[in-house]
Protein backbone atom coordinates (compact mmCIF):
# COMPACT_ATOMS: atom_id res chain seq x y z
CA UNK A 1 0.00 0.00 0.00
CA UNK A 2 2.79 2.33 0.88
CA UNK A 3 5.05 1.37 -2.03
CA UNK A 4 6.27 4.00 -4.40
CA UNK A 5 4.65 2.55 -7.54
CA UNK A 6 1.25 3.30 -6.15
CA UNK A 7 2.38 6.76 -5.15
CA UNK A 8 3.60 7.32 -8.67
CA UNK A 9 0.38 6.05 -10.11
CA UNK A 10 -1.49 8.39 -7.82
CA UNK A 11 0.67 11.29 -8.91
CA UNK A 12 0.08 10.35 -12.49
CA UNK A 13 -3.67 10.21 -11.91
CA UNK A 14 -3.51 13.53 -10.11
CA UNK A 15 -1.80 15.16 -13.05
CA UNK A 16 -4.21 13.64 -15.50
CA UNK A 17 -7.27 14.70 -13.59
CA UNK A 18 -6.09 18.14 -12.59
CA UNK A 19 -8.83 20.64 -13.21
CA UNK A 20 -11.58 18.08 -12.90
CA UNK A 21 -14.08 18.29 -10.09
CA UNK A 22 -13.06 16.55 -6.88
CA UNK A 23 -15.96 17.62 -4.70
CA UNK A 24 -19.39 18.71 -5.84
CA UNK A 25 -21.96 20.11 -3.45
CA UNK A 26 -25.43 20.65 -4.87
CA UNK A 27 -28.23 22.60 -3.22
CA UNK A 28 -26.93 22.05 0.29
CA UNK A 29 -29.18 23.52 2.98
CA UNK A 30 -28.42 23.29 6.67
CA UNK A 31 -30.81 24.31 9.41
CA UNK A 32 -30.21 24.73 13.11
CA UNK A 33 -33.19 23.04 14.72
CA UNK A 34 -33.67 25.62 17.46
CA UNK A 35 -36.84 27.58 18.19
CA UNK A 36 -37.43 29.16 15.73
CA UNK A 37 -35.24 27.20 13.28
CA UNK A 38 -32.32 29.10 11.74
CA UNK A 39 -31.43 28.45 8.12
CA UNK A 40 -27.66 28.74 8.28
CA UNK A 41 -26.92 27.49 4.76
CA UNK A 42 -29.42 27.92 1.94
CA UNK A 43 -29.17 25.91 -1.26
CA UNK A 44 -25.45 26.28 -1.69
CA UNK A 45 -23.92 24.68 -4.77
CA UNK A 46 -20.17 24.64 -5.08
CA UNK A 47 -17.66 22.70 -7.14
CA UNK A 48 -14.10 22.20 -5.99
CA UNK A 49 -11.60 21.28 -8.69
CA UNK A 50 -8.62 19.08 -8.23
CA UNK A 51 -5.58 20.96 -6.98
CA UNK A 52 -7.21 24.36 -6.66
CA UNK A 53 -7.50 26.68 -3.70
CA UNK A 54 -11.08 27.79 -3.35
CA UNK A 55 -11.56 30.70 -1.00
CA UNK A 56 -14.80 30.95 0.92
CA UNK A 57 -15.20 34.44 2.33
CA UNK A 58 -17.83 35.94 4.56
CA UNK A 59 -18.43 37.45 7.96
CA UNK A 60 -19.27 35.65 11.16
CA UNK A 61 -22.68 34.03 11.00
CA UNK A 62 -22.79 33.83 7.20
CA UNK A 63 -22.77 30.03 7.28
CA UNK A 64 -19.32 29.40 5.85
CA UNK A 65 -18.14 27.25 8.75
CA UNK A 66 -21.45 25.38 8.97
CA UNK A 67 -21.20 24.62 5.26
CA UNK A 68 -17.66 23.28 5.61
CA UNK A 69 -18.65 21.06 8.51
CA UNK A 70 -21.68 19.90 6.57
CA UNK A 71 -19.57 18.90 3.56
CA UNK A 72 -17.45 16.72 5.84
CA UNK A 73 -20.52 15.46 7.72
CA UNK A 74 -19.23 16.95 10.96
CA UNK A 75 -22.35 18.91 11.85
CA UNK A 76 -22.87 19.23 15.57
CA UNK A 77 -26.35 19.13 17.05
CA UNK A 78 -28.73 20.88 16.58
CA UNK A 79 -27.61 21.42 12.96
CA UNK A 80 -29.40 19.29 10.36
CA UNK A 81 -28.67 19.07 6.64
CA UNK A 82 -32.15 19.46 5.20
CA UNK A 83 -31.43 19.16 1.51
CA UNK A 84 -28.71 18.69 -1.01
CA UNK A 85 -26.05 16.25 -2.05
CA UNK A 86 -22.28 16.12 -1.67
CA UNK A 87 -20.37 13.94 -4.11
CA UNK A 88 -16.70 13.19 -3.78
CA UNK A 89 -15.02 12.19 -7.05
CA UNK A 90 -12.19 9.88 -6.05
CA UNK A 91 -8.96 9.94 -8.01
CA UNK A 92 -9.54 6.34 -9.16
CA UNK A 93 -12.74 7.41 -10.89
CA UNK A 94 -15.37 6.24 -8.39
CA UNK A 95 -17.90 8.69 -7.03
CA UNK A 96 -18.73 8.67 -3.32
CA UNK A 97 -22.04 10.04 -2.12
CA UNK A 98 -20.91 11.65 1.11
CA UNK A 99 -24.44 12.27 2.36
CA UNK A 100 -25.17 8.54 2.25
CA UNK A 101 -22.10 7.45 4.21
CA UNK A 102 -22.43 6.20 7.74
CA UNK A 103 -20.49 4.50 10.47
CA UNK A 104 -17.19 2.91 9.44
CA UNK A 105 -17.38 4.19 5.84
CA UNK A 106 -17.79 7.74 7.04
CA UNK A 107 -14.93 7.41 9.49
CA UNK A 108 -12.66 6.15 6.72
CA UNK A 109 -13.78 8.86 4.33
CA UNK A 110 -12.89 11.68 6.67
CA UNK A 111 -9.18 12.24 7.01
CA UNK A 112 -8.46 9.70 4.25
CA UNK A 113 -10.11 11.61 1.43
CA UNK A 114 -11.03 14.93 3.02
CA UNK A 115 -9.21 16.30 6.04
CA UNK A 116 -9.85 19.38 8.06
CA UNK A 117 -7.86 22.05 9.90
CA UNK A 118 -9.69 24.67 11.90
CA UNK A 119 -8.88 27.75 13.90
CA UNK A 120 -8.62 26.06 17.26
CA UNK A 121 -6.91 22.97 15.85
CA UNK A 122 -3.66 23.74 17.54
CA UNK A 123 -5.41 23.47 20.88
CA UNK A 124 -6.91 20.10 20.09
CA UNK A 125 -3.61 18.24 20.34
CA UNK A 126 -3.65 15.92 23.32
CA UNK A 127 -1.59 17.67 26.01
CA UNK A 128 -0.36 14.49 27.67
CA UNK A 129 0.90 12.73 24.54
CA UNK A 130 3.95 13.69 22.55
CA UNK A 131 3.72 14.53 18.87
CA UNK A 132 5.15 11.15 17.82
CA UNK A 133 2.42 9.21 19.59
CA UNK A 134 -0.31 11.38 18.11
CA UNK A 135 1.00 11.06 14.57
CA UNK A 136 1.53 7.30 14.95
CA UNK A 137 -2.03 6.99 16.20
CA UNK A 138 -3.32 8.30 12.89
CA UNK A 139 -1.54 5.48 11.08
CA UNK A 140 -2.38 2.71 13.54
CA UNK A 141 -6.04 3.66 13.17
CA UNK A 142 -6.25 4.22 9.42
CA UNK A 143 -3.29 2.22 8.09
CA UNK A 144 -3.04 -0.78 10.41
CA UNK A 145 -0.81 -2.66 7.99
CA UNK A 146 2.05 -0.15 8.34
CA UNK A 147 5.03 -1.32 10.37
CA UNK A 148 6.43 0.67 13.25
CA UNK A 149 9.43 1.70 11.17
CA UNK A 150 7.22 2.92 8.34
CA UNK A 151 5.08 4.90 10.74
CA UNK A 152 8.14 6.55 12.23
CA UNK A 153 9.58 7.33 8.79
CA UNK A 154 6.30 8.78 7.56
CA UNK A 155 5.90 10.88 10.73
CA UNK A 156 9.39 12.35 10.28
CA UNK A 157 8.70 13.07 6.61
CA UNK A 158 5.44 14.80 7.49
CA UNK A 159 7.01 17.11 10.04
CA UNK A 160 9.80 17.98 7.63
CA UNK A 161 7.13 18.65 5.01
CA UNK A 162 5.39 21.29 7.11
CA UNK A 163 8.65 22.89 8.15
CA UNK A 164 9.01 21.48 11.65
CA UNK A 165 12.28 19.85 12.72
CA UNK A 166 11.61 16.06 12.85
CA UNK A 167 13.55 16.11 16.13
CA UNK A 168 10.46 17.67 17.67
CA UNK A 169 8.59 14.36 17.40
CA UNK A 170 9.36 13.76 21.07
CA UNK A 171 8.03 17.16 22.09
CA UNK A 172 4.79 17.62 23.98
CA UNK A 173 2.27 20.18 22.69
CA UNK A 174 3.05 22.70 25.45
CA UNK A 175 6.68 22.74 24.37
CA UNK A 176 5.70 24.02 20.92
CA UNK A 177 4.62 27.52 19.96
CA UNK A 178 1.15 28.16 18.55
CA UNK A 179 2.49 28.32 15.01
CA UNK A 180 4.37 25.03 15.43
CA UNK A 181 1.31 23.32 16.86
CA UNK A 182 -0.77 24.49 13.92
CA UNK A 183 1.89 23.11 11.56
CA UNK A 184 1.74 19.78 13.38
CA UNK A 185 -2.03 19.81 12.88
CA UNK A 186 -1.53 20.44 9.17
CA UNK A 187 0.95 17.54 9.13
CA UNK A 188 -1.69 15.31 10.72
CA UNK A 189 -4.25 16.48 8.20
CA UNK A 190 -1.82 15.57 5.41
CA UNK A 191 -0.89 12.22 6.94
CA UNK A 192 -3.17 10.08 4.79
CA UNK A 193 -2.65 11.96 1.51
CA UNK A 194 -6.11 13.50 1.39
CA UNK A 195 -7.35 14.83 -1.92
CA UNK A 196 -9.15 17.72 -0.26
CA UNK A 197 -8.25 19.83 2.75
CA UNK A 198 -10.85 22.06 4.37
CA UNK A 199 -9.18 24.85 6.29
CA UNK A 200 -11.38 27.02 8.47
CA UNK A 201 -9.55 30.19 9.59
CA UNK A 202 -6.40 28.07 10.03
CA UNK A 203 -4.14 31.01 10.83
CA UNK A 204 -6.48 33.64 12.29
CA UNK A 205 -5.32 33.15 15.87
CA UNK A 206 -1.66 33.47 14.90
CA UNK A 207 0.62 36.45 14.49
CA UNK A 208 1.08 37.82 10.99
CA UNK A 209 4.65 36.64 10.53
CA UNK A 210 3.81 33.10 11.64
CA UNK A 211 0.65 33.20 9.54
CA UNK A 212 2.69 34.12 6.50
CA UNK A 213 5.09 31.24 7.08
CA UNK A 214 2.27 28.72 7.30
CA UNK A 215 0.44 30.06 4.25
CA UNK A 216 3.61 29.86 2.19
CA UNK A 217 4.22 26.30 3.39
CA UNK A 218 0.64 25.40 2.48
CA UNK A 219 1.09 26.80 -1.04
CA UNK A 220 4.30 24.77 -1.44
CA UNK A 221 2.64 21.57 -0.27
CA UNK A 222 -0.26 22.13 -2.58
CA UNK A 223 2.14 22.35 -5.53
CA UNK A 224 3.95 19.18 -4.50
CA UNK A 225 1.05 17.01 -3.41
CA UNK A 226 -1.72 18.37 -5.57
CA UNK A 227 -4.53 18.39 -3.02
CA UNK A 228 -7.38 20.86 -3.32
CA UNK A 229 -8.13 23.34 -0.55
CA UNK A 230 -11.29 25.01 0.63
CA UNK A 231 -9.87 27.97 2.53
CA UNK A 232 -12.40 29.69 4.76
CA UNK A 233 -11.69 33.11 6.24
CA UNK A 234 -13.06 36.59 6.67
CA UNK A 235 -9.73 37.95 5.43
CA UNK A 236 -10.61 38.76 1.82
CA UNK A 237 -7.25 40.35 0.90
CA UNK A 238 -5.47 37.17 1.96
CA UNK A 239 -7.87 35.06 -0.12
CA UNK A 240 -7.36 37.26 -3.15
CA UNK A 241 -3.64 36.81 -2.77
CA UNK A 242 -3.64 33.01 -2.53
CA UNK A 243 -6.84 31.60 -4.03
CA UNK A 244 -7.59 30.43 -7.54
CA UNK A 245 -11.30 30.99 -7.13
CA UNK A 246 -13.34 32.78 -4.48
CA UNK A 247 -16.94 32.41 -3.34
CA UNK A 248 -18.53 35.14 -1.22
CA UNK A 249 -21.11 34.00 1.30
CA UNK A 250 -23.77 36.07 3.01
CA UNK A 251 -26.80 34.97 5.02
CA UNK A 252 -26.26 31.35 4.09
CA UNK A 253 -26.05 31.92 0.34
CA UNK A 254 -23.18 32.18 -2.07
CA UNK A 255 -23.84 35.57 -3.58
CA UNK A 256 -20.88 35.73 -5.90
CA UNK A 257 -18.27 33.37 -7.32
CA UNK A 258 -15.34 34.00 -9.56
CA UNK A 259 -11.61 33.87 -10.01
CA UNK A 260 -9.60 35.85 -7.49
CA UNK A 261 -8.87 38.35 -10.23
CA UNK A 262 -12.56 38.86 -11.07
CA UNK A 263 -13.53 39.26 -7.44
CA UNK A 264 -10.79 41.81 -6.84
CA UNK A 265 -10.98 43.86 -9.99
CA UNK A 266 -14.53 43.33 -11.10
CA UNK A 267 -16.89 42.45 -8.26
CA UNK A 268 -20.53 42.42 -9.34
CA UNK A 269 -22.26 42.47 -5.96
CA UNK A 270 -22.43 45.57 -3.76
CA UNK A 271 -21.70 43.41 -0.70
CA UNK A 272 -18.47 42.17 -2.25
CA UNK A 273 -17.47 45.76 -2.93
CA UNK A 274 -18.32 46.67 0.65
CA UNK A 275 -16.22 43.79 1.98
CA UNK A 276 -13.32 44.83 -0.22
CA UNK A 277 -13.55 48.43 0.93
CA UNK A 278 -13.50 47.29 4.56
CA UNK A 279 -9.84 46.51 4.15
CA UNK A 280 -7.80 49.64 3.68
CA UNK A 281 -4.97 49.38 1.21
CA UNK A 282 -1.60 49.40 2.90
CA UNK A 283 0.01 51.55 0.28
CA UNK A 284 -2.99 53.32 -1.27
CA UNK A 285 -3.98 56.95 -0.85
CA UNK A 286 -3.28 58.19 2.66
CA UNK A 287 -6.41 58.81 4.69
CA UNK A 288 -8.66 57.65 1.85
CA UNK A 289 -9.94 55.06 4.25
CA UNK A 290 -10.88 57.29 7.15
CA UNK A 291 -13.81 59.43 6.09
CA UNK A 292 -12.46 62.95 6.11
CA UNK A 293 -9.78 61.69 8.46
CA UNK A 294 -6.59 63.30 9.69
CA UNK A 295 -4.79 65.33 7.10
Amino acid at each position, binding site marked *: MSGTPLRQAQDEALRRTRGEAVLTATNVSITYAVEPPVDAVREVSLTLHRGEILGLAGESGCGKTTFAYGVNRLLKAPAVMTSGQVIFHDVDGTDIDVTALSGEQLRRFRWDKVSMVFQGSMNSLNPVMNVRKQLHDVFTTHRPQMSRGEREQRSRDLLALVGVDPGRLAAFPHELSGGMRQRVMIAMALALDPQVMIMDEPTTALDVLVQRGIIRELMRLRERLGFAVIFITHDLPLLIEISDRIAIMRDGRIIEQGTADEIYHNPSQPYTKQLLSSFPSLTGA*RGGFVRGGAQ
Partner: protein
Amino acid sequence: MSNSLEVRHLCKDFRLRRGVHFDTLHAVADANFVLEPGHTVALVGESGSGKSTIARIIAKLETPTSGEVLLDGAATNFSGAKLAGYRRQVQMVFQDPFASLNPFHSIAHHIERPLRIHHPELSTAEVRRRAAELLEKVQLGAAYLERRPHELSGGQRQRVAIARALAPGARFIIADEPVSMLDVSIRVGVLNLLAELQRSEGLGVLYITHDLATARHFSDEILVMHRGVIVERGPADDVILNPQHEYTKALREAAADPDRLGRLRDEVRAEQPGGTHED
Protein backbone atom coordinates in the same frame (compact mmCIF):
# COMPACT_ATOMS: atom_id res chain seq x y z
CA MET B 1 5.22 69.62 28.69
CA SER B 2 1.77 70.98 29.41
CA ASN B 3 -1.37 69.50 27.87
CA SER B 4 0.11 66.13 27.07
CA LEU B 5 0.31 62.56 28.23
CA GLU B 6 3.89 61.43 28.27
CA VAL B 7 5.54 58.08 28.83
CA ARG B 8 9.16 58.36 29.98
CA HIS B 9 11.68 55.51 30.25
CA LEU B 10 8.89 53.07 30.92
CA CYS B 11 9.97 49.52 31.82
CA LYS B 12 7.94 46.54 32.95
CA ASP B 13 9.42 43.20 33.96
CA PHE B 14 7.44 40.08 34.69
CA ARG B 15 8.92 37.30 36.77
CA LEU B 16 8.23 33.97 35.17
CA ARG B 17 8.63 30.75 37.04
CA ARG B 18 10.77 28.22 35.18
CA GLY B 19 10.93 25.14 37.35
CA VAL B 20 12.65 26.15 40.57
CA HIS B 21 14.17 29.46 39.52
CA PHE B 22 12.68 32.62 38.10
CA ASP B 23 13.31 34.23 34.74
CA THR B 24 12.70 37.86 34.07
CA LEU B 25 10.70 38.83 31.01
CA HIS B 26 11.24 42.39 29.89
CA ALA B 27 7.73 43.05 28.63
CA VAL B 28 8.45 46.73 28.05
CA ALA B 29 11.96 48.15 27.87
CA ASP B 30 12.54 51.90 27.97
CA ALA B 31 9.47 53.13 26.14
CA ASN B 32 9.23 56.89 25.48
CA PHE B 33 6.53 58.80 23.66
CA VAL B 34 4.21 61.77 23.94
CA LEU B 35 0.49 61.89 23.26
CA GLU B 36 -1.02 65.28 22.47
CA PRO B 37 -4.64 66.38 22.16
CA GLY B 38 -5.89 66.19 18.60
CA HIS B 39 -3.27 63.64 17.61
CA THR B 40 -3.35 59.89 17.18
CA VAL B 41 -0.33 57.73 17.85
CA ALA B 42 -0.45 54.11 16.72
CA LEU B 43 1.43 51.46 18.65
CA VAL B 44 1.92 48.52 16.28
CA GLY B 45 3.19 45.10 17.17
CA GLU B 46 2.37 41.40 17.37
CA SER B 47 0.94 39.65 20.40
CA GLY B 48 3.45 39.58 23.22
CA SER B 49 5.26 42.68 21.96
CA GLY B 50 4.34 44.60 25.10
CA LYS B 51 1.90 47.01 23.51
CA SER B 52 -1.02 46.01 25.72
CA THR B 53 1.21 46.21 28.80
CA ILE B 54 1.91 49.85 27.97
CA ALA B 55 -1.84 50.44 27.63
CA ARG B 56 -2.51 48.88 31.01
CA ILE B 57 0.24 50.90 32.66
CA ILE B 58 -1.13 54.15 31.27
CA ALA B 59 -4.65 53.13 32.38
CA LYS B 60 -3.20 52.49 35.87
CA LEU B 61 -4.15 48.83 35.79
CA GLU B 62 -0.48 47.87 36.19
CA THR B 63 2.43 49.61 37.84
CA PRO B 64 5.64 50.03 35.87
CA THR B 65 8.88 48.45 37.13
CA SER B 66 10.59 51.75 36.43
CA GLY B 67 9.91 54.92 34.50
CA GLU B 68 6.87 57.13 34.74
CA VAL B 69 3.71 58.38 33.11
CA LEU B 70 3.41 62.19 33.10
CA LEU B 71 0.14 64.06 32.69
CA ASP B 72 0.64 67.68 31.66
CA GLY B 73 4.25 67.36 32.72
CA ALA B 74 3.50 66.19 36.28
CA ALA B 75 4.24 62.75 37.71
CA THR B 76 1.21 60.52 38.21
CA ASN B 77 2.36 57.89 40.72
CA PHE B 78 -0.38 58.71 43.20
CA SER B 79 -3.54 57.13 44.54
CA GLY B 80 -6.87 58.15 46.06
CA ALA B 81 -8.51 61.40 45.03
CA LYS B 82 -5.64 62.37 42.73
CA LEU B 83 -5.93 59.05 40.93
CA ALA B 84 -9.61 59.82 40.34
CA GLY B 85 -8.51 63.12 38.82
CA TYR B 86 -6.12 61.25 36.50
CA ARG B 87 -8.82 58.79 35.46
CA ARG B 88 -11.08 61.71 34.57
CA GLN B 89 -8.48 62.73 31.96
CA VAL B 90 -7.27 59.33 30.73
CA GLN B 91 -9.67 56.58 29.70
CA MET B 92 -9.42 53.26 27.91
CA VAL B 93 -11.41 51.29 25.31
CA PHE B 94 -10.85 47.56 25.64
CA GLN B 95 -10.35 44.96 22.95
CA ASP B 96 -13.18 42.54 23.54
CA PRO B 97 -16.62 44.19 23.40
CA PHE B 98 -18.20 40.94 24.60
CA ALA B 99 -16.13 40.93 27.81
CA SER B 100 -15.84 44.62 28.57
CA LEU B 101 -19.51 45.15 29.41
CA ASN B 102 -20.94 43.51 32.53
CA PRO B 103 -23.67 41.08 31.42
CA PHE B 104 -25.64 41.76 34.61
CA HIS B 105 -26.04 45.51 34.11
CA SER B 106 -27.92 47.66 31.64
CA ILE B 107 -26.19 50.02 29.23
CA ALA B 108 -27.34 52.90 31.45
CA HIS B 109 -25.29 51.54 34.35
CA HIS B 110 -22.14 51.43 32.22
CA ILE B 111 -22.41 55.07 31.19
CA GLU B 112 -24.01 56.61 34.26
CA ARG B 113 -21.55 55.19 36.77
CA PRO B 114 -18.50 57.05 35.42
CA LEU B 115 -20.65 60.20 35.19
CA ARG B 116 -21.67 59.84 38.85
CA ILE B 117 -18.17 58.97 40.06
CA HIS B 118 -16.52 61.92 38.37
CA HIS B 119 -19.35 64.42 38.63
CA PRO B 120 -21.06 63.72 41.97
CA GLU B 121 -22.71 67.15 41.86
CA LEU B 122 -25.02 66.11 39.00
CA SER B 123 -28.67 65.30 39.69
CA THR B 124 -30.11 61.94 38.63
CA ALA B 125 -32.05 63.57 35.79
CA GLU B 126 -28.94 65.39 34.63
CA VAL B 127 -26.90 62.18 34.69
CA ARG B 128 -29.57 60.47 32.61
CA ARG B 129 -29.64 63.37 30.14
CA ARG B 130 -25.87 63.31 29.71
CA ALA B 131 -25.83 59.53 29.30
CA ALA B 132 -28.39 59.84 26.52
CA GLU B 133 -26.28 62.59 24.96
CA LEU B 134 -23.18 60.38 25.04
CA LEU B 135 -25.06 57.57 23.32
CA GLU B 136 -26.16 60.06 20.64
CA LYS B 137 -22.52 60.97 20.18
CA VAL B 138 -21.63 57.37 19.38
CA GLN B 139 -24.63 57.13 17.06
CA LEU B 140 -26.72 54.84 19.23
CA GLY B 141 -29.38 57.04 20.84
CA ALA B 142 -31.11 57.14 24.21
CA ALA B 143 -33.25 54.09 23.45
CA TYR B 144 -30.21 51.94 24.13
CA LEU B 145 -30.00 53.02 27.78
CA GLU B 146 -32.45 50.37 28.93
CA ARG B 147 -30.95 47.60 26.85
CA ARG B 148 -28.63 44.94 28.17
CA PRO B 149 -25.26 44.01 26.65
CA HIS B 150 -26.42 40.66 25.25
CA GLU B 151 -29.03 42.44 23.14
CA LEU B 152 -26.35 44.43 21.30
CA SER B 153 -24.06 43.47 18.43
CA GLY B 154 -20.30 43.66 18.77
CA GLY B 155 -20.12 46.99 16.98
CA GLN B 156 -22.86 48.50 19.15
CA ARG B 157 -21.13 47.25 22.29
CA GLN B 158 -17.88 48.85 21.22
CA ARG B 159 -19.75 52.14 20.67
CA VAL B 160 -21.07 51.86 24.22
CA ALA B 161 -17.51 51.26 25.42
CA ILE B 162 -16.41 54.43 23.63
CA ALA B 163 -19.27 56.40 25.20
CA ARG B 164 -18.22 55.07 28.61
CA ALA B 165 -14.65 56.23 28.02
CA LEU B 166 -15.91 59.69 27.06
CA ALA B 167 -18.26 59.94 30.06
CA PRO B 168 -15.79 61.33 32.62
CA GLY B 169 -14.76 63.98 30.08
CA ALA B 170 -11.46 62.36 29.13
CA ARG B 171 -8.86 64.16 27.03
CA PHE B 172 -6.82 61.05 26.29
CA ILE B 173 -8.17 57.71 25.09
CA ILE B 174 -6.17 54.48 25.03
CA ALA B 175 -7.80 52.21 22.44
CA ASP B 176 -6.41 48.68 22.80
CA GLU B 177 -7.17 46.83 19.55
CA PRO B 178 -10.66 48.37 19.51
CA VAL B 179 -11.83 46.70 16.30
CA SER B 180 -9.84 43.47 16.06
CA MET B 181 -12.72 41.39 17.43
CA LEU B 182 -15.38 42.99 15.26
CA ASP B 183 -16.68 41.79 11.92
CA VAL B 184 -14.72 43.31 9.07
CA SER B 185 -17.54 45.27 7.52
CA ILE B 186 -18.26 47.23 10.73
CA ARG B 187 -14.63 47.95 11.63
CA VAL B 188 -14.50 50.95 9.36
CA GLY B 189 -17.58 52.43 11.02
CA VAL B 190 -16.15 52.17 14.52
CA LEU B 191 -12.75 53.50 13.46
CA ASN B 192 -14.37 56.41 11.66
CA LEU B 193 -16.41 57.19 14.74
CA LEU B 194 -13.23 57.28 16.82
CA ALA B 195 -11.58 59.50 14.22
CA GLU B 196 -14.54 61.90 14.21
CA LEU B 197 -14.66 62.11 17.98
CA GLN B 198 -10.94 62.60 18.08
CA ARG B 199 -11.32 65.66 15.88
CA SER B 200 -14.53 67.10 17.33
CA GLU B 201 -13.45 66.65 20.97
CA GLY B 202 -9.77 67.27 20.37
CA LEU B 203 -8.82 63.94 21.93
CA GLY B 204 -5.35 62.47 22.12
CA VAL B 205 -5.66 58.84 21.05
CA LEU B 206 -3.23 55.97 21.50
CA TYR B 207 -4.34 53.40 18.94
CA ILE B 208 -2.94 49.98 19.70
CA THR B 209 -3.15 47.50 16.85
CA HIS B 210 -1.45 44.72 14.93
CA ASP B 211 -2.87 45.95 11.66
CA LEU B 212 -0.46 48.12 9.70
CA ALA B 213 -3.01 49.38 7.21
CA THR B 214 -5.46 50.88 9.71
CA ALA B 215 -2.53 52.19 11.75
CA ARG B 216 -1.41 54.14 8.71
CA HIS B 217 -4.79 55.52 7.77
CA PHE B 218 -5.93 56.25 11.28
CA SER B 219 -2.91 57.83 12.95
CA ASP B 220 -0.40 60.65 12.66
CA GLU B 221 2.55 58.84 14.13
CA ILE B 222 3.41 55.14 14.26
CA LEU B 223 5.55 53.34 16.82
CA VAL B 224 6.55 49.77 15.96
CA MET B 225 7.11 47.50 18.93
CA HIS B 226 8.99 44.23 18.92
CA ARG B 227 9.66 42.19 22.07
CA GLY B 228 9.16 45.12 24.40
CA VAL B 229 11.29 47.56 22.45
CA ILE B 230 10.05 50.37 20.21
CA VAL B 231 12.19 49.57 17.16
CA GLU B 232 10.94 52.22 14.78
CA ARG B 233 8.95 55.44 14.97
CA GLY B 234 7.98 58.25 12.70
CA PRO B 235 5.17 59.88 10.74
CA ALA B 236 2.66 57.21 9.67
CA ASP B 237 3.42 57.34 5.94
CA ASP B 238 7.18 57.19 6.40
CA VAL B 239 7.07 54.16 8.64
CA ILE B 240 4.76 52.17 6.36
CA LEU B 241 5.91 53.27 2.92
CA ASN B 242 9.58 53.51 3.71
CA PRO B 243 10.33 51.22 6.66
CA GLN B 244 13.88 51.28 7.97
CA HIS B 245 13.96 48.52 10.57
CA GLU B 246 14.11 44.87 9.48
CA TYR B 247 11.16 43.97 11.67
CA THR B 248 8.93 46.67 10.21
CA LYS B 249 9.89 45.49 6.74
CA ALA B 250 9.03 41.88 7.65
CA LEU B 251 5.66 42.97 9.05
CA ARG B 252 4.93 44.93 5.92
CA GLU B 253 5.89 42.01 3.74
CA ALA B 254 3.65 39.65 5.73
CA ALA B 255 0.54 41.84 5.57
CA ALA B 256 -1.98 40.47 3.10
CA ASP B 257 -2.08 42.61 -0.01
CA PRO B 258 -4.60 41.86 -2.73
CA ASP B 259 -2.42 43.72 -5.20
CA ARG B 260 0.02 40.81 -5.01
CA LEU B 261 -2.67 38.53 -6.43
CA GLY B 262 -1.20 35.22 -7.48
CA ARG B 263 2.37 36.26 -6.80
CA LEU B 264 2.85 33.88 -3.87
CA ARG B 265 1.63 31.00 -6.04
CA ASP B 266 4.06 31.89 -8.81
CA GLU B 267 6.96 32.26 -6.38
CA VAL B 268 6.23 28.92 -4.82
CA ARG B 269 5.89 27.27 -8.23
CA ALA B 270 9.23 28.60 -9.32
CA GLU B 271 10.83 27.01 -6.24
CA GLN B 272 9.55 23.54 -7.10
CA PRO B 273 12.39 21.21 -8.11
CA GLY B 274 10.42 19.64 -10.95
CA GLY B 275 9.74 23.01 -12.54
CA THR B 276 6.21 24.28 -12.84
CA HIS B 277 3.02 22.35 -13.21
CA GLU B 278 1.10 23.57 -16.17
CA ASP B 279 -2.62 23.83 -15.81
